[in-house]
């Protein structure tokens, strides 16, 4: 493999792995604030215990987010040096702001939140939880501003030495792409957290232990779940899709597998793109729907891949097609299962409908898959550009770092991250097995470490 490919895999692997953790961090932080708020309002001790239980899991997850995030920050320089040199004047800005505004906030108040429950008043402890949540959401915002500038560069100008500079700070922060991407992505983080919470709730209820807490988790998880899953498709996903269609028409054509421009373009629900012969194998398609989704009328013409020169097509087209369809397919499933669960919850029958509980329990990996697929859609859809329309991916990597070296460190990360995965699974499984009642006062050493 050549150096470029290896650097791409290196980045893709480490970022994808990193993002497994922040999505739960951001979503769970919000749900913990919800639990703490309920505790304050109802004075019911159980909500505090529930919040404490999730704080323990949060702590492990946060730690893994931190240790896998640090390599991300470095890799812009180590693996993408030419990209960093040219665009640092723009994207360095939000990245540095992320450190200064959110990492300090999160890391300071997480210590207080985890250790300070007895030293702080109840309201102050709620405040610590809120600030941790705020910190992680600010973190997500700045990173998405960074990514959005690569997808849709705005507010920049070219300096004589060939590097880019921000021309308007507000222009950069108010990039419409960033806001659309941010709401869609944050909503997805809440989807992940609510599926995880409902799965643990379903587990306890099915096991007939800690059922009090099981019920609380199911209630909070399912209500947050139905709201976020619906928002995920409409309006956030829909708006985001229309914006992509407007500014990256070639990406949308590839996502949908539309090789030829068409009036009343069909939406392909399933199929296998055959790039050589420019067609979809085994298509399962609904006529006119794509035109309607993008333009609001069934007769509008949607540009197909044939409108664009071949060297602007996304490089790994079938993967893009599948990633997009997996995301959208799972999104539809999420709404269905959560709507059913919410209905049963409302009728008071959720706890006794065992097959739905089983579905909730087994579904918790899917939001992770949907999130990864969503990011793959965005990032592969951007190819062959590193910064859309300005800089090709092939121009951005570190020319002085050889392919062998990159492979070596990629293997190193693979090994290290396998260990992390095992630790995560063992520790979270331990916490769930122990259950909410048994959390208090065992030994702990670090800040992040729960109880």
């Amino acid at each position: 493999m050549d150096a470029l490919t290896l650097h791409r895999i290196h980045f893709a692997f480490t970022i994808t792995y990193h993002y497994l953790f922040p999505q739960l961090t951001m979503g769970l932080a919000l749900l913990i604030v919800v639990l703490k708020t309920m505790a304050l309002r109802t004075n019911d001790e159980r909500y505090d215990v529930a919040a404490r239980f999730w704080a323990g899991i949060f702590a492990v997850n946060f730690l893994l987010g931190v240790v896998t995030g640090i390599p991300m920050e470095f890799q812009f320089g180590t693996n993408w040096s030419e990209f960093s040199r040219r665009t640092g004047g723009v994207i360095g800005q939000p990245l540095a702001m992320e450190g200064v505004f959110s990492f300090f906030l999160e890391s300071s108040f997480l210590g207080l939140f985890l250790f300070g429950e007895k030293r702080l008043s109840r309201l102050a402890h709620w405040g610590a939880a809120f600030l941790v949540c705020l910190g992680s959401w600010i973190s997500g915002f700045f990173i998405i501003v960074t990514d959005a500038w690569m997808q849709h560069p705005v507010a920049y100008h070219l300096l004589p030495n060939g590097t880019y500079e921000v021309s308007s700070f507000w222009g950069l922060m108010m990039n419409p792409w960033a806001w659309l991407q941010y709401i869609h992505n944050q909503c997805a983080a809440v989807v992940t957290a609510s599926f995880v919470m409902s799965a643990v709730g379903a587990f306890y209820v099915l096991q007939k232990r800690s059922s009090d807490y099981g019920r609380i988790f199911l209630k909070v998880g399912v209500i947050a779940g139905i709201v976020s899953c619906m928002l995920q498709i409409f309006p956030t996903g829909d708006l985001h899709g229309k914006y992509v269609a407007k500014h990256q028409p070639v990406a949308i054509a590839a996502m949908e597998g539309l090789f030829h421009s068409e009036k009343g373009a069909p939406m392909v629900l399933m199929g296998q793109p055959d790039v050589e012969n420019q067609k979809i194998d085994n298509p399962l398609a609904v006529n006119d729907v794509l035109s309607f989704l993008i333009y609001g009328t069934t007769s509008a013409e949607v540009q197909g891949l044939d409108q664009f020169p071949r060297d602007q097509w996304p490089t790994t087209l079938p993967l893009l097609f599948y990633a997009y369809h997996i995301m959208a397919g799972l999104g539809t499933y999420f709404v269905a299962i959560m709507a059913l669960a919410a209905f049963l919850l409302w009728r008071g029958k959720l706890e006794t409908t065992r097959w739905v509980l089983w579905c909730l329990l087994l579904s918790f990996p899917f939001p992770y898959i949907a999130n990864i697929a969503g990011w793959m859609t965005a990032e592969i859809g951007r190819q062959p550009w590193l910064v859309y329309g300005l800089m090709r991916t092939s121009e951005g990597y570190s020319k002085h770092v050889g392919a062998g070296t990159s492979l070596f460190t990629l293997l190193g990360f693979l090994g290290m991250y396998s260990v992390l995965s095992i630790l995560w699974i063992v520790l979270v499984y331990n916490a769930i097995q122990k259950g909410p009642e048994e959390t208090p006062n065992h030994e702990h050493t670090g800040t992040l470490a729960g109880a």
Partner: protein
Amino acid sequence: MGMLWFWIVAVMLAAYVVLDGFDLGVGAVMLLVAHTDEERKQAYQSIGPVWDGNEVWLLAAGGTLFFAFPLLYASAFSGFYMPLMIVLWLLILRGLSVELRGHVHDEMWHSFWDVVFTFSSGLLIIFFGAALANVIRGVPIGPDSYFYLSLWTNWRTGANPGILDWYTVLGGVLALLALSLHGSLYLALKTEGDLHDRCYALAKRLGPAVVIGCLVSIPATVIARPNSLANYEKHPAEFLAPVTVAICLVLLPILIHKGDELRAFLTSCALLIAMLCGAAAGLYPVLLPSTLGSQSDITMANALAGPHSLKVGLVWWSIGIVLAGIYFTTVYWLFRGKVSSYSDTYGH
């Protein structure tokens, strides 16, 4: 503008060295001073609530470097590729050891993470020291402003050095001595009983070693980079830094012998800051000197980002750093005093 950002990045790095320095130092000496499980637990608790915040200074400094001097960030990070990746792996191991040790009650689990903690902390310090020495000595930057440094060549300085040569290894050793001292002083401040006494005894022995190390490093630097003195001759005000270093080196052993723990620790902070300022002053306005001739040095002038970015940056950076200062004061205040005074009131 360039000078301002140069010092902003330098100050952030100094904050990193002073703050994360003590928790790295605690890690490096932990196996030496803390013998029982209970003592080791205290060592972890002394840094528990603050280590992650301390480490954020590295990230924030890195981010600031990225946006203020993109060329330097690009060139240095890709040029130091291998050692940086090793640093990343060590940072991962260290973060895990601090946080995960307490999660399982088992002697084997504990002693495993204790060894990982000491190993990764110690090695990180050596790498950071060597990295600083690399920046002082210079690296073979080519005409395209990039370089790629191998881990070692012939262990000599010169036009084509490795990351490790006699000079940078010396830098690593000096850093290990200085931060071990820093860490034992901090741990002594936070603990009582046997652990405290052992930390203190170690500090007494490390004091003179640090003094000798610093004295050796001066001629070594002049040999490794002959024109580092030129800057000082041009700007005599810069002599303030080495003079401060000298004063600290005299004060430190005296304070340790008098048993004045707090002042000794603060002097150790001042020593670290003064050493870093001394190094920065010797370079300025060069950011990364080239061993292939000064025409390919990375300097402030060629690495600085555009003027508008920097102006905007100054506004948010000032706000952000004041906020960070407030958070740090709050956390250090709430967890002040000896570990035993707050560990039993830990929340859930």
